[in-house]
């Protein structure tokens, strides 16, 4: 999508995933998150949880992936979230969002977005992001 076509109110194409317990363990290992509630149903239940849960960081990373798939040429400048409920494997996760502001700065543009992560029809995470879009010729690999 070109910078010129992005406008306030535009919806971000949703990201829908169903993660297995192994997927969550794989992330927890790759992300250096040793907390056993992210690895084991049994330990999570001992901690009063219904079973294995996703690390909050993984939910944030899924929101970041959604933004990356929408605008792969953009650079993520800010990402902020509020954790409102637990997110679990083996049930659909839906990430969505929309554009709330667009600020031109000469040749580049900043885009503000509101973000939502839902599971079982409930908003488990809400957040905001700021993306920077440079003109195509100046676009560096994102990070």
């Amino acid at each position, binding site marked *: 999508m070109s910078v010129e076509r992005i406008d306030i109110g535009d919806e971000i194409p949703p990201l829908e*995933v169903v993660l297995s317990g192994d*997927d969550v363990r*794989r*992330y927890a*290992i*790759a*992300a*250096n998150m040793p907390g056993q509630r992210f690895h084991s149903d049994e330990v999570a239940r001992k901690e009063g949880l219904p079973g294995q849960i996703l690390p*909050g*960081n*993984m939910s*944030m*990373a*899924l929101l*970041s*992936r959604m933004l*990356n*798939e929408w605008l*792969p040429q953009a*650079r*993520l*400048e*800010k*990402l*902020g*979230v*509020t*954790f409102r409920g637990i997110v679990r494997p083996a049930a659909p996760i839906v990430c969505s969002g929309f554009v709330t502001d667009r600020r031109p700065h000469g040749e580049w543009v900043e885009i503000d977005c509101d973000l939502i992560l839902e599971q079982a029809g409930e908003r488990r995470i809400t*957040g905001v992001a700021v993306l920077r879009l440079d003109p195509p010729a100046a676009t560096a*690999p*994102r*990070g």
Partner: protein
Amino acid sequence: MSEALPLGIDAALLGVEFDSSVSPPVTAQEIHEYAASLGESHPVYFAPEPVAPPTFCMKFRGNRFSPPALPRRAFARSFDAGKDIQFGAPIRAGDVIHTSNVLHEVYEKTGRSGAMVFIVSRLRMKNQRGEMVAVIDSRFLIRGEAAT
């Protein structure tokens, strides 16, 4: 003793570094595995000399998330309420990440469920060139009797 914050926390602790760390050099394999674990598909994450996805920075958390002087009861009923990340220079294979953690903010709120205290730690990250990689504010929420 300076002014006390909620939970009797000494205001002199604000902004004082309580933890720091230096990572081993980031490997291409670490970046590949992180990106793959999220189902990412951008080719720069899987190149022989990859750039890491932005949230890769959360892997570097230092050794502890709160000052040792904070009352233990503060965290007995706490949970992770959220994070705000400001991203800087992308992390690339070979980078060495330096972290510095401070107690950034302690504040109270009262809601329908009663008193709540928020403790915010701020983790600053730089790479080996001194470039800012990320600033992460982590909010921990303490509610109920532990917050009074």
